[in-house]
Protein backbone atom coordinates (compact mmCIF):
# COMPACT_ATOMS: atom_id res chain seq x y z
CA UNK A 1 0.00 0.00 0.00
CA UNK A 2 2.72 2.47 1.05
CA UNK A 3 6.15 1.90 -0.33
CA UNK A 4 9.09 4.13 0.55
CA UNK A 5 12.20 3.67 -1.59
CA UNK A 6 15.60 5.19 -0.92
CA UNK A 7 14.16 8.17 0.91
CA UNK A 8 16.71 10.79 1.95
CA UNK A 9 15.82 13.99 3.77
CA UNK A 10 18.26 16.87 4.05
CA UNK A 11 17.87 20.06 6.02
CA UNK A 12 19.76 23.25 5.21
CA UNK A 13 20.88 24.72 8.54
CA UNK A 14 23.17 27.57 9.57
CA UNK A 15 25.93 25.04 10.21
CA UNK A 16 25.56 23.39 6.83
CA UNK A 17 23.47 20.59 5.43
CA UNK A 18 22.25 17.76 7.66
CA UNK A 19 20.91 14.43 6.42
CA UNK A 20 18.13 13.63 8.90
CA UNK A 21 17.05 10.55 6.94
CA UNK A 22 19.40 8.57 4.71
CA UNK A 23 18.40 5.96 2.17
CA UNK A 24 15.38 4.55 3.98
CA UNK A 25 13.21 1.93 2.25
CA UNK A 26 10.05 0.61 3.93
CA UNK A 27 6.74 -0.99 2.99
CA UNK A 28 3.42 -1.01 4.80
CA UNK A 29 0.74 -3.51 3.73
CA UNK A 30 -3.00 -3.11 4.11
CA UNK A 31 -4.16 -3.76 7.66
CA UNK A 32 -0.61 -4.04 8.91
CA UNK A 33 0.99 -2.16 11.81
CA UNK A 34 4.60 -1.19 11.19
CA UNK A 35 6.40 -0.03 14.34
CA UNK A 36 9.22 2.49 13.94
CA UNK A 37 11.59 2.56 16.93
CA UNK A 38 14.32 5.08 17.49
CA UNK A 39 15.56 7.78 19.83
CA UNK A 40 15.32 11.52 19.31
CA UNK A 41 17.12 12.52 16.12
CA UNK A 42 16.96 9.03 14.62
CA UNK A 43 14.83 10.32 11.74
CA UNK A 44 11.76 8.24 12.61
CA UNK A 45 9.33 11.17 12.44
CA UNK A 46 10.98 13.00 9.54
CA UNK A 47 10.74 9.90 7.34
CA UNK A 48 6.96 10.12 7.41
CA UNK A 49 6.73 13.90 7.47
CA UNK A 50 8.70 13.80 4.20
CA UNK A 51 6.47 11.07 2.81
CA UNK A 52 3.44 13.30 3.33
CA UNK A 53 5.05 16.51 2.06
CA UNK A 54 5.06 18.03 5.54
CA UNK A 55 8.74 18.91 5.87
CA UNK A 56 9.81 22.28 7.22
CA UNK A 57 10.68 24.78 4.48
CA UNK A 58 14.43 24.14 4.82
CA UNK A 59 13.94 20.42 4.24
CA UNK A 60 14.40 18.61 0.94
CA UNK A 61 13.34 15.03 0.26
CA UNK A 62 14.56 12.73 -2.48
CA UNK A 63 13.66 9.16 -3.35
CA UNK A 64 10.26 7.62 -4.04
CA UNK A 65 7.18 7.31 -1.86
CA UNK A 66 4.51 5.29 -3.63
CA UNK A 67 1.01 5.27 -2.19
CA UNK A 68 -1.40 3.09 -4.19
CA UNK A 69 0.26 4.14 -7.45
CA UNK A 70 0.85 7.86 -6.72
CA UNK A 71 4.37 9.14 -6.10
CA UNK A 72 4.05 11.51 -3.14
CA UNK A 73 7.54 13.02 -3.43
CA UNK A 74 7.21 16.03 -5.66
CA UNK A 75 3.43 15.66 -5.88
CA UNK A 76 1.56 18.97 -6.01
CA UNK A 77 -0.19 20.34 -2.92
CA UNK A 78 -3.54 19.70 -4.63
CA UNK A 79 -2.75 16.02 -5.05
CA UNK A 80 -1.38 15.75 -1.50
CA UNK A 81 -4.50 17.44 -0.13
CA UNK A 82 -6.71 14.77 -1.66
CA UNK A 83 -4.68 12.13 0.17
CA UNK A 84 -3.76 13.69 3.51
CA UNK A 85 -6.57 13.53 6.06
CA UNK A 86 -8.51 11.38 3.62
CA UNK A 87 -6.61 8.25 2.59
CA UNK A 88 -3.72 8.79 4.98
CA UNK A 89 -4.25 10.55 8.28
CA UNK A 90 -1.93 11.46 11.09
CA UNK A 91 -2.10 11.36 14.87
CA UNK A 92 0.48 13.39 16.74
CA UNK A 93 1.89 13.25 20.23
CA UNK A 94 0.30 16.37 21.59
CA UNK A 95 -3.37 16.71 20.67
CA UNK A 96 -3.49 20.20 22.18
CA UNK A 97 -1.14 21.58 19.55
CA UNK A 98 -2.65 19.64 16.65
CA UNK A 99 -6.26 20.67 17.28
CA UNK A 100 -7.27 24.24 16.48
CA UNK A 101 -7.73 25.92 19.87
CA UNK A 102 -10.42 28.42 18.88
CA UNK A 103 -12.71 26.03 17.02
CA UNK A 104 -15.29 23.78 18.62
CA UNK A 105 -14.58 20.06 18.33
CA UNK A 106 -17.71 19.51 16.24
CA UNK A 107 -16.69 22.05 13.63
CA UNK A 108 -13.19 20.61 13.36
CA UNK A 109 -14.58 17.12 12.81
CA UNK A 110 -17.15 18.34 10.28
CA UNK A 111 -14.50 20.27 8.37
CA UNK A 112 -12.73 17.03 7.45
CA UNK A 113 -15.92 15.73 5.84
CA UNK A 114 -16.68 19.04 4.16
CA UNK A 115 -13.21 19.15 2.67
CA UNK A 116 -12.94 15.56 1.47
CA UNK A 117 -16.53 14.39 1.06
CA UNK A 118 -18.37 17.61 0.29
CA UNK A 119 -20.78 16.90 3.13
CA UNK A 120 -22.44 19.76 4.94
CA UNK A 121 -24.39 20.63 8.05
CA UNK A 122 -26.58 17.92 9.45
CA UNK A 123 -24.93 14.99 7.62
CA UNK A 124 -21.48 15.95 8.82
CA UNK A 125 -22.74 16.39 12.37
CA UNK A 126 -24.42 12.98 12.38
CA UNK A 127 -21.25 11.33 11.17
CA UNK A 128 -19.14 13.23 13.70
CA UNK A 129 -21.35 12.00 16.54
CA UNK A 130 -21.16 8.44 15.22
CA UNK A 131 -17.39 8.64 15.07
CA UNK A 132 -17.07 10.02 18.61
CA UNK A 133 -19.20 7.08 19.76
CA UNK A 134 -16.96 4.76 17.78
CA UNK A 135 -13.92 5.92 19.75
CA UNK A 136 -15.86 5.54 23.04
CA UNK A 137 -16.26 9.19 23.92
CA UNK A 138 -19.09 9.56 26.42
CA UNK A 139 -21.82 12.14 25.71
CA UNK A 140 -20.71 12.84 22.12
CA UNK A 141 -23.43 15.45 21.44
CA UNK A 142 -22.15 17.59 24.31
CA UNK A 143 -18.48 17.19 23.29
CA UNK A 144 -19.17 18.62 19.84
CA UNK A 145 -19.93 21.96 21.48
CA UNK A 146 -16.69 22.01 23.47
CA UNK A 147 -13.32 23.57 22.72
CA UNK A 148 -10.17 21.40 22.84
CA UNK A 149 -8.96 22.98 26.11
CA UNK A 150 -12.16 21.87 27.83
CA UNK A 151 -11.30 18.22 27.25
CA UNK A 152 -8.85 16.07 29.21
CA UNK A 153 -5.68 14.81 27.54
CA UNK A 154 -7.14 11.35 26.96
CA UNK A 155 -10.35 12.74 25.44
CA UNK A 156 -8.38 15.10 23.20
CA UNK A 157 -6.36 12.18 21.87
CA UNK A 158 -9.62 10.30 21.21
CA UNK A 159 -10.94 13.32 19.30
CA UNK A 160 -7.71 13.30 17.25
CA UNK A 161 -8.22 9.62 16.48
CA UNK A 162 -11.89 10.24 15.60
CA UNK A 163 -10.78 12.99 13.23
CA UNK A 164 -8.16 10.71 11.70
CA UNK A 165 -10.82 8.06 11.11
CA UNK A 166 -13.51 10.38 9.68
CA UNK A 167 -12.81 9.57 6.04
CA UNK A 168 -12.07 5.89 6.58
CA UNK A 169 -8.35 6.15 5.80
CA UNK A 170 -6.32 3.25 4.45
CA UNK A 171 -3.33 4.28 6.56
CA UNK A 172 -2.86 6.08 9.86
CA UNK A 173 0.53 7.49 10.80
CA UNK A 174 0.65 7.69 14.59
CA UNK A 175 3.66 9.65 15.83
CA UNK A 176 4.17 9.00 19.58
CA UNK A 177 0.39 8.84 20.02
CA UNK A 178 0.52 7.98 23.73
CA UNK A 179 3.74 9.59 24.91
CA UNK A 180 2.01 12.59 26.49
CA UNK A 181 -0.62 10.46 28.23
CA UNK A 182 -0.76 8.81 31.64
CA UNK A 183 -0.21 5.09 31.66
CA UNK A 184 -3.84 4.13 32.37
CA UNK A 185 -5.04 6.45 29.61
CA UNK A 186 -2.29 5.14 27.31
CA UNK A 187 -3.71 1.65 27.79
CA UNK A 188 -7.15 2.92 26.67
CA UNK A 189 -5.75 4.60 23.54
CA UNK A 190 -3.65 1.56 22.58
CA UNK A 191 -6.75 -0.61 22.94
CA UNK A 192 -8.62 1.76 20.66
CA UNK A 193 -5.87 1.66 18.00
CA UNK A 194 -5.80 -2.15 18.22
CA UNK A 195 -9.56 -2.21 17.72
CA UNK A 196 -9.34 0.18 14.71
CA UNK A 197 -6.65 -1.96 13.12
CA UNK A 198 -8.55 -5.20 13.56
CA UNK A 199 -12.09 -4.08 12.80
CA UNK A 200 -11.41 -1.58 10.00
CA UNK A 201 -8.28 -3.18 8.49
CA UNK A 202 -6.54 0.19 8.66
CA UNK A 203 -2.78 0.16 8.18
CA UNK A 204 -0.90 1.85 11.01
CA UNK A 205 2.60 3.26 11.18
CA UNK A 206 3.38 3.48 14.89
CA UNK A 207 6.32 5.77 15.61
CA UNK A 208 7.56 5.58 19.20
CA UNK A 209 10.56 5.25 21.48
CA UNK A 210 8.59 2.96 23.81
CA UNK A 211 9.39 -0.68 23.13
CA UNK A 212 6.43 -1.83 25.23
CA UNK A 213 3.99 0.10 23.03
CA UNK A 214 5.53 -1.49 19.92
CA UNK A 215 5.35 -4.97 21.46
CA UNK A 216 1.62 -4.63 22.01
CA UNK A 217 0.57 -3.35 18.60
CA UNK A 218 3.13 -3.77 15.81
CA UNK A 219 3.30 -6.66 13.33
CA UNK A 220 6.65 -5.67 11.90
CA UNK A 221 9.32 -3.39 13.36
CA UNK A 222 11.95 -1.11 11.84
CA UNK A 223 14.69 0.20 14.13
CA UNK A 224 16.31 3.51 13.18
CA UNK A 225 19.58 5.05 14.33
CA UNK A 226 21.18 8.29 13.12
CA UNK A 227 18.79 8.62 10.17
CA UNK A 228 19.16 5.06 8.89
CA UNK A 229 17.41 1.75 9.24
CA UNK A 230 19.56 -0.58 11.31
CA UNK A 231 17.26 -3.58 11.65
CA UNK A 232 13.90 -4.80 10.35
CA UNK A 233 11.88 -7.92 11.09
CA UNK A 234 8.64 -9.20 12.57
CA UNK A 235 7.82 -8.02 16.06
CA UNK A 236 8.53 -11.46 17.53
CA UNK A 237 11.90 -11.73 15.81
CA UNK A 238 13.00 -8.26 16.86
CA UNK A 239 12.12 -8.81 20.52
CA UNK A 240 13.11 -12.48 20.85
CA UNK A 241 16.21 -12.45 18.68
CA UNK A 242 17.54 -8.93 18.02
CA UNK A 243 20.45 -9.13 15.60
CA UNK A 244 21.76 -5.57 15.51
CA UNK A 245 23.91 -4.48 18.48
CA UNK A 246 21.83 -1.30 18.87
CA UNK A 247 18.53 -3.21 19.05
CA UNK A 248 20.10 -5.55 21.58
CA UNK A 249 21.36 -2.63 23.64
CA UNK A 250 17.97 -0.89 23.62
CA UNK A 251 16.16 -4.00 24.79
CA UNK A 252 18.76 -4.74 27.46
CA UNK A 253 18.80 -1.25 28.99
CA UNK A 254 15.01 -1.01 29.37
CA UNK A 255 13.96 -2.03 32.90
CA UNK A 256 10.95 -4.35 32.72
CA UNK A 257 8.12 -4.98 35.12
CA UNK A 258 7.79 -8.63 34.11
CA UNK A 259 11.45 -9.41 34.67
CA UNK A 260 12.80 -7.17 37.43
CA UNK A 261 16.48 -6.35 37.53
CA UNK A 262 18.63 -5.37 40.46
CA UNK A 263 21.91 -3.53 40.64
CA UNK A 264 23.37 -1.75 37.64
CA UNK A 265 21.33 -1.77 34.43
CA UNK A 266 23.09 -2.71 31.20
CA UNK A 267 23.76 0.50 29.27
CA UNK A 268 24.65 1.70 25.82
CA UNK A 269 27.72 3.82 26.54
CA UNK A 270 28.15 7.30 25.08
CA UNK A 271 25.39 9.26 23.42
CA UNK A 272 23.56 9.46 20.09
CA UNK A 273 25.77 10.99 17.39
CA UNK A 274 25.63 14.51 16.07
CA UNK A 275 24.20 14.12 12.56
CA UNK A 276 26.41 16.95 11.34
CA UNK A 277 29.57 15.15 12.27
CA UNK A 278 28.98 11.54 11.32
CA UNK A 279 32.12 9.49 10.85
CA UNK A 280 32.71 7.47 7.71
CA UNK A 281 31.88 4.02 9.05
CA UNK A 282 28.91 2.68 10.98
CA UNK A 283 27.21 5.49 12.97
CA UNK A 284 26.75 3.15 15.94
CA UNK A 285 30.40 2.02 15.98
CA UNK A 286 31.55 4.48 18.72
CA UNK A 287 28.99 2.96 21.14
CA UNK A 288 29.06 -0.62 19.92
CA UNK A 289 30.45 -3.42 22.13
CA UNK A 290 30.96 -5.60 19.04
CA UNK A 291 32.90 -3.06 16.99
CA UNK A 292 35.60 -4.29 14.56
CA UNK A 293 38.17 -2.25 12.67
CA UNK A 294 36.18 -2.71 9.47
CA UNK A 295 33.16 -1.02 11.08
CA UNK A 296 35.04 2.27 11.23
CA UNK A 297 36.00 2.24 7.57
CA UNK A 298 32.84 1.65 5.62
CA UNK A 299 29.15 2.16 6.32
CA UNK A 300 27.45 -1.24 6.59
CA UNK A 301 24.56 -1.55 4.11
CA UNK A 302 21.17 -2.87 5.20
CA UNK A 303 21.41 -6.49 4.11
CA UNK A 304 18.98 -9.41 4.30
CA UNK A 305 20.25 -12.16 6.59
CA UNK A 306 17.16 -14.33 7.05
CA UNK A 307 13.77 -14.50 5.33
CA UNK A 308 12.00 -11.18 5.94
CA UNK A 309 14.83 -9.82 8.08
CA UNK A 310 17.57 -7.30 7.40
CA UNK A 311 20.23 -5.50 9.40
CA UNK A 312 22.93 -2.92 8.86
CA UNK A 313 25.75 -4.71 10.63
CA UNK A 314 28.64 -6.66 9.19
CA UNK A 315 28.79 -9.18 12.02
CA UNK A 316 26.85 -12.43 12.08
CA UNK A 317 28.40 -13.81 15.24
CA UNK A 318 26.90 -11.66 18.01
CA UNK A 319 25.91 -14.74 20.05
CA UNK A 320 29.41 -16.12 20.11
CA UNK A 321 30.98 -12.71 20.67
CA UNK A 322 28.80 -11.75 23.66
Amino acid at each position, binding site marked *: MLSIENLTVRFATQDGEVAAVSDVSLKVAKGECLGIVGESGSGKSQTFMAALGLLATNGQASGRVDFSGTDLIGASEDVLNTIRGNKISMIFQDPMTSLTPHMKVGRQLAEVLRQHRGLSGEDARTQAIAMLKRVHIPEPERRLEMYPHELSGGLRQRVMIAMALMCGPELIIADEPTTALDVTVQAQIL*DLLRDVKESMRTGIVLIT*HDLGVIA*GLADRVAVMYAGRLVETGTVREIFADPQHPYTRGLLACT*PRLDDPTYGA*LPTIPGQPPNLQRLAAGCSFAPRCPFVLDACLLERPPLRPFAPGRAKACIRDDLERAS
Partner: protein
Amino acid sequence: MTLLSVRDLKVHFPVKVGGVFGHSVPLKAVDGVSFDLAAGETLGIVGESGCGKSTLGRAILHLLPPTAGTVAWLGKDIPPSAVHEMRREMQVVFQDPLASLDPRMTAGDIIAEPLRNYHSDLGRAEITARVQDMMAKVGLLPGMINRYPHEFSGGQCQRIGIARAMILRPKLVVCDEPVSALDVSIRAQVVNLLMSLQQEFGLSLIFISHDLSVVRHISHRVMVLYLGRIMELADRDSLYAAPRHPYTQALIAAVPIPDPDKERAKRRIILTGDPPSPLNPPSGCVFRTRCPHATAICSQAVPPLDSAGPGHAVACHNWPEIAASL
Protein backbone atom coordinates in the same frame (compact mmCIF):
# COMPACT_ATOMS: atom_id res chain seq x y z
CA MET B 1 17.99 5.84 61.30
CA THR B 2 15.02 7.95 60.30
CA LEU B 3 16.10 10.93 58.28
CA LEU B 4 12.79 12.43 57.35
CA SER B 5 9.40 12.16 59.07
CA VAL B 6 6.42 13.55 57.21
CA ARG B 7 3.17 13.68 59.16
CA ASP B 8 -0.25 14.47 57.73
CA LEU B 9 1.21 16.85 55.17
CA LYS B 10 -1.27 18.96 53.26
CA VAL B 11 -0.62 21.43 50.47
CA HIS B 12 -3.72 23.26 49.28
CA PHE B 13 -3.68 25.96 46.64
CA PRO B 14 -6.48 28.53 46.54
CA VAL B 15 -8.00 28.54 43.05
CA LYS B 16 -10.45 31.20 41.88
CA VAL B 17 -13.54 29.85 40.20
CA GLY B 18 -16.50 31.60 38.63
CA GLY B 19 -15.03 34.75 37.08
CA VAL B 20 -15.07 38.28 38.55
CA PHE B 21 -17.55 37.57 41.33
CA GLY B 22 -16.22 34.08 41.89
CA HIS B 23 -14.87 32.63 45.05
CA SER B 24 -11.79 30.72 45.99
CA VAL B 25 -11.81 26.95 46.48
CA PRO B 26 -8.88 24.88 47.73
CA LEU B 27 -7.10 22.64 45.24
CA LYS B 28 -5.90 19.82 47.44
CA ALA B 29 -2.67 18.89 45.68
CA VAL B 30 -1.39 16.93 48.68
CA ASP B 31 -3.98 15.91 51.22
CA GLY B 32 -2.72 14.18 54.34
CA VAL B 33 0.47 12.31 53.45
CA SER B 34 2.58 10.62 56.14
CA PHE B 35 5.72 8.56 55.76
CA ASP B 36 9.24 8.07 57.12
CA LEU B 37 12.43 7.91 55.10
CA ALA B 38 15.51 6.11 56.42
CA ALA B 39 19.10 7.12 55.74
CA GLY B 40 20.43 5.46 52.60
CA GLU B 41 16.95 4.52 51.44
CA THR B 42 15.27 5.23 48.10
CA LEU B 43 11.57 5.96 48.19
CA GLY B 44 9.87 5.89 44.81
CA ILE B 45 6.76 8.04 44.39
CA VAL B 46 4.55 7.09 41.46
CA GLY B 47 1.27 8.40 40.18
CA GLU B 48 -0.28 10.00 37.14
CA SER B 49 -0.17 13.68 36.22
CA GLY B 50 -1.88 15.84 38.80
CA CYS B 51 -1.59 13.28 41.60
CA GLY B 52 0.53 15.67 43.65
CA LYS B 53 3.83 13.84 43.45
CA SER B 54 5.88 16.90 42.45
CA THR B 55 4.06 19.13 44.94
CA LEU B 56 4.86 16.60 47.67
CA GLY B 57 8.53 16.68 46.65
CA ARG B 58 8.59 20.46 46.79
CA ALA B 59 6.82 20.60 50.15
CA ILE B 60 9.37 18.18 51.63
CA LEU B 61 12.14 20.52 50.48
CA HIS B 62 10.25 23.53 51.91
CA LEU B 63 10.11 25.02 48.43
CA LEU B 64 6.37 25.26 49.05
CA PRO B 65 4.84 26.09 52.42
CA PRO B 66 2.66 23.24 53.70
CA THR B 67 -0.95 24.13 54.51
CA ALA B 68 -0.90 21.70 57.43
CA GLY B 69 1.24 18.91 58.80
CA THR B 70 4.92 18.62 59.62
CA VAL B 71 8.17 17.66 57.94
CA ALA B 72 10.72 16.71 60.60
CA TRP B 73 14.41 16.24 59.83
CA LEU B 74 16.35 13.83 62.09
CA GLY B 75 13.50 13.96 64.58
CA LYS B 76 13.28 17.77 64.75
CA ASP B 77 10.82 20.18 63.19
CA ILE B 78 12.39 22.73 60.91
CA PRO B 79 11.53 26.34 61.85
CA PRO B 80 11.40 28.78 58.91
CA SER B 81 14.62 30.42 60.10
CA ALA B 82 16.50 27.13 59.69
CA VAL B 83 15.27 26.28 56.20
CA HIS B 84 18.26 27.85 54.46
CA GLU B 85 20.66 25.86 56.61
CA MET B 86 18.63 22.67 56.00
CA ARG B 87 18.93 22.95 52.23
CA ARG B 88 22.60 22.14 52.58
CA GLU B 89 21.42 18.66 53.50
CA MET B 90 18.62 18.25 50.97
CA GLN B 91 18.94 18.94 47.28
CA VAL B 92 16.84 18.51 44.16
CA VAL B 93 17.24 17.30 40.57
CA PHE B 94 14.59 18.38 38.07
CA GLN B 95 13.06 16.76 35.00
CA ASP B 96 14.11 19.02 32.17
CA PRO B 97 17.88 19.16 32.34
CA LEU B 98 18.34 22.07 29.97
CA ALA B 99 15.57 24.24 31.42
CA SER B 100 16.85 23.82 34.97
CA LEU B 101 20.34 25.12 34.13
CA ASP B 102 21.05 28.85 33.66
CA PRO B 103 22.10 29.15 29.99
CA ARG B 104 24.47 32.03 30.75
CA MET B 105 26.48 30.18 33.38
CA THR B 106 29.24 27.68 32.66
CA ALA B 107 28.90 24.10 33.87
CA GLY B 108 31.57 24.87 36.47
CA ASP B 109 29.72 27.92 37.83
CA ILE B 110 26.43 26.01 37.94
CA ILE B 111 27.95 23.15 39.91
CA ALA B 112 29.89 25.55 42.18
CA GLU B 113 26.91 27.77 43.04
CA PRO B 114 25.82 25.81 46.15
CA LEU B 115 29.43 25.84 47.36
CA ARG B 116 29.59 29.62 47.01
CA ASN B 117 26.26 29.93 48.88
CA TYR B 118 27.23 27.76 51.81
CA HIS B 119 31.03 27.91 51.93
CA SER B 120 31.89 31.53 51.18
CA ASP B 121 35.27 30.98 52.82
CA LEU B 122 36.48 28.60 50.09
CA GLY B 123 39.15 29.90 47.73
CA ARG B 124 38.83 29.78 43.98
CA ALA B 125 41.32 26.95 43.54
CA GLU B 126 39.58 24.83 46.17
CA ILE B 127 36.18 25.39 44.52
CA THR B 128 37.56 24.42 41.11
CA ALA B 129 39.14 21.30 42.57
CA ARG B 130 35.91 20.22 44.25
CA VAL B 131 33.85 20.93 41.11
CA GLN B 132 36.21 18.94 38.88
CA ASP B 133 36.24 16.10 41.38
CA MET B 134 32.43 16.01 41.36
CA MET B 135 32.32 16.25 37.55
CA ALA B 136 34.50 13.15 37.35
CA LYS B 137 32.22 11.36 39.83
CA VAL B 138 29.11 12.01 37.74
CA GLY B 139 30.81 11.01 34.49
CA LEU B 140 31.63 14.42 33.00
CA LEU B 141 35.06 15.26 31.69
CA PRO B 142 36.56 17.80 34.15
CA GLY B 143 38.03 19.58 31.13
CA MET B 144 34.48 20.66 30.15
CA ILE B 145 34.21 22.93 33.21
CA ASN B 146 34.09 26.12 31.13
CA ARG B 147 31.46 24.96 28.64
CA TYR B 148 27.88 26.27 28.60
CA PRO B 149 24.75 24.09 28.98
CA HIS B 150 23.83 24.25 25.29
CA GLU B 151 27.14 22.58 24.43
CA PHE B 152 26.11 19.47 26.36
CA SER B 153 23.64 16.73 25.39
CA GLY B 154 20.48 16.12 27.43
CA GLY B 155 22.08 13.29 29.38
CA GLN B 156 25.17 15.38 30.13
CA CYS B 157 22.99 18.31 31.28
CA GLN B 158 21.26 15.96 33.70
CA ARG B 159 24.70 14.95 34.98
CA ILE B 160 25.46 18.65 35.58
CA GLY B 161 22.19 18.92 37.53
CA ILE B 162 23.17 15.88 39.59
CA ALA B 163 26.66 17.27 40.22
CA ARG B 164 25.13 20.55 41.44
CA ALA B 165 22.86 18.58 43.78
CA MET B 166 25.74 16.46 45.09
CA ILE B 167 28.46 19.10 45.55
CA LEU B 168 27.47 19.87 49.18
CA ARG B 169 27.36 16.14 49.98
CA PRO B 170 23.68 16.27 50.99
CA LYS B 171 21.93 13.50 52.92
CA LEU B 172 18.80 13.60 50.75
CA VAL B 173 18.24 14.30 47.06
CA VAL B 174 14.71 14.66 45.72
CA CYS B 175 14.69 13.63 42.05
CA ASP B 176 11.61 14.90 40.22
CA GLU B 177 11.21 12.87 37.00
CA PRO B 178 14.99 12.95 36.47
CA VAL B 179 15.06 10.58 33.50
CA SER B 180 11.71 11.25 31.82
CA ALA B 181 13.09 13.69 29.27
CA LEU B 182 16.02 11.46 28.34
CA ASP B 183 16.38 8.96 25.53
CA VAL B 184 16.05 5.29 26.41
CA SER B 185 19.75 4.57 26.01
CA ILE B 186 20.70 7.52 28.27
CA ARG B 187 18.06 6.76 30.92
CA ALA B 188 19.84 3.62 32.11
CA GLN B 189 23.12 5.54 32.43
CA VAL B 190 21.56 8.18 34.68
CA VAL B 191 19.70 5.58 36.78
CA ASN B 192 22.99 3.73 37.32
CA LEU B 193 24.71 7.00 38.24
CA LEU B 194 22.12 7.82 40.92
CA MET B 195 22.38 4.30 42.34
CA SER B 196 26.18 4.41 42.48
CA LEU B 197 26.17 7.88 44.13
CA GLN B 198 23.77 6.52 46.70
CA GLN B 199 26.14 3.65 47.44
CA GLU B 200 29.18 5.88 47.64
CA PHE B 201 27.69 8.61 49.83
CA GLY B 202 24.99 6.70 51.75
CA LEU B 203 22.48 9.08 50.22
CA SER B 204 18.71 8.93 50.64
CA LEU B 205 16.70 9.44 47.46
CA ILE B 206 13.12 10.39 46.82
CA PHE B 207 12.57 9.33 43.22
CA ILE B 208 9.43 10.85 41.72
CA SER B 209 8.37 9.34 38.41
CA HIS B 210 5.44 8.18 36.35
CA ASP B 211 7.56 5.31 34.98
CA LEU B 212 6.75 2.27 37.08
CA SER B 213 9.52 0.14 35.57
CA VAL B 214 12.29 2.61 36.44
CA VAL B 215 10.83 3.15 39.92
CA ARG B 216 10.81 -0.59 40.54
CA HIS B 217 14.45 -0.83 39.57
CA ILE B 218 15.77 2.03 41.70
CA SER B 219 13.52 2.08 44.79
CA HIS B 220 13.57 0.22 48.09
CA ARG B 221 10.03 1.28 48.93
CA VAL B 222 7.32 2.70 46.68
CA MET B 223 4.44 5.08 47.39
CA VAL B 224 1.46 5.23 45.03
CA LEU B 225 -0.34 8.59 45.02
CA TYR B 226 -3.74 9.42 43.57
CA LEU B 227 -5.34 12.87 43.86
CA GLY B 228 -2.97 13.88 46.64
CA ARG B 229 -3.49 10.83 48.84
CA ILE B 230 -1.45 7.70 49.47
CA MET B 231 -3.19 4.68 47.98
CA GLU B 232 -0.48 2.19 48.82
CA LEU B 233 2.99 2.24 50.38
CA ALA B 234 5.12 -0.88 50.52
CA ASP B 235 8.47 -2.49 49.95
CA ARG B 236 9.33 -2.61 46.26
CA ASP B 237 8.96 -6.34 45.81
CA SER B 238 5.76 -6.74 47.78
CA LEU B 239 4.16 -3.75 46.03
CA TYR B 240 4.91 -5.03 42.54
CA ALA B 241 4.44 -8.74 43.21
CA ALA B 242 1.31 -8.42 45.35
CA PRO B 243 -0.30 -5.01 44.85
CA ARG B 244 -3.30 -4.68 47.18
CA HIS B 245 -4.89 -1.45 46.01
CA PRO B 246 -7.05 -1.66 42.87
CA TYR B 247 -5.38 1.50 41.56
CA THR B 248 -1.90 0.02 41.93
CA GLN B 249 -3.15 -3.16 40.26
CA ALA B 250 -4.50 -1.13 37.34
CA LEU B 251 -1.34 0.98 37.05
CA ILE B 252 0.90 -2.08 36.93
CA ALA B 253 -1.37 -3.85 34.46
CA ALA B 254 -1.35 -0.80 32.19
CA VAL B 255 2.43 -0.70 31.76
CA PRO B 256 3.25 -2.18 28.35
CA ILE B 257 5.70 -5.07 28.56
CA PRO B 258 8.45 -5.15 25.91
CA ASP B 259 7.63 -8.73 24.95
CA PRO B 260 5.02 -9.25 22.22
CA ASP B 261 3.74 -12.59 23.54
CA LYS B 262 3.40 -11.49 27.16
CA GLU B 263 2.03 -8.07 26.23
CA ARG B 264 -0.71 -9.52 24.03
CA ALA B 265 -1.62 -12.30 26.46
CA LYS B 266 -1.70 -10.31 29.68
CA ARG B 267 -4.79 -9.68 31.75
CA ARG B 268 -6.03 -6.16 31.17
CA ILE B 269 -7.63 -3.97 33.78
CA ILE B 270 -8.66 -1.03 31.68
CA LEU B 271 -9.64 1.90 33.85
CA THR B 272 -12.27 4.03 32.23
CA GLY B 273 -12.05 7.80 32.02
CA ASP B 274 -9.44 10.15 33.41
CA PRO B 275 -8.58 11.06 36.99
CA PRO B 276 -11.19 13.52 38.34
CA SER B 277 -10.36 17.17 38.95
CA PRO B 278 -8.58 17.77 42.27
CA LEU B 279 -10.80 20.86 42.61
CA ASN B 280 -13.80 18.63 43.02
CA PRO B 281 -12.57 15.28 44.33
CA PRO B 282 -15.03 12.45 44.89
CA SER B 283 -16.35 11.95 48.43
CA GLY B 284 -14.97 9.06 50.45
CA CYS B 285 -12.28 7.23 48.52
CA VAL B 286 -10.92 9.52 45.79
CA PHE B 287 -10.36 6.55 43.48
CA ARG B 288 -13.90 5.17 43.66
CA THR B 289 -15.15 6.83 40.45
CA ARG B 290 -12.71 4.74 38.38
CA CYS B 291 -12.51 1.71 40.65
CA PRO B 292 -13.85 -1.59 39.30
CA HIS B 293 -14.43 -2.83 42.87
CA ALA B 294 -16.19 0.19 44.41
CA THR B 295 -19.01 -0.51 46.89
CA ALA B 296 -21.41 1.69 48.87
CA ILE B 297 -18.97 2.41 51.69
CA CYS B 298 -16.39 3.83 49.27
CA SER B 299 -18.46 6.98 48.68
CA GLN B 300 -19.18 7.44 52.39
CA ALA B 301 -15.88 7.12 54.21
CA VAL B 302 -12.27 7.93 53.41
CA PRO B 303 -10.40 4.61 53.68
CA PRO B 304 -7.61 4.74 56.29
CA LEU B 305 -4.12 3.42 55.52
CA ASP B 306 -4.51 -0.16 56.66
CA SER B 307 -1.74 -2.70 57.22
CA ALA B 308 -1.73 -5.43 54.59
CA GLY B 309 1.37 -7.13 55.95
CA PRO B 310 4.75 -6.10 57.33
CA GLY B 311 5.69 -2.70 55.91
CA HIS B 312 2.75 -2.79 53.51
CA ALA B 313 0.05 -0.13 53.89
CA VAL B 314 -3.03 0.19 51.69
CA ALA B 315 -5.91 2.67 51.70
CA CYS B 316 -8.85 0.61 50.45
CA HIS B 317 -12.02 -0.50 52.25
CA ASN B 318 -12.25 -3.69 50.24
CA TRP B 319 -8.66 -4.82 49.85
CA PRO B 320 -9.03 -8.16 51.71
CA GLU B 321 -12.00 -9.16 49.54
CA ILE B 322 -10.20 -8.05 46.36
CA ALA B 323 -7.07 -10.01 47.36
CA ALA B 324 -9.20 -13.10 48.07
CA SER B 325 -10.91 -12.87 44.69
CA LEU B 326 -7.66 -12.78 42.67
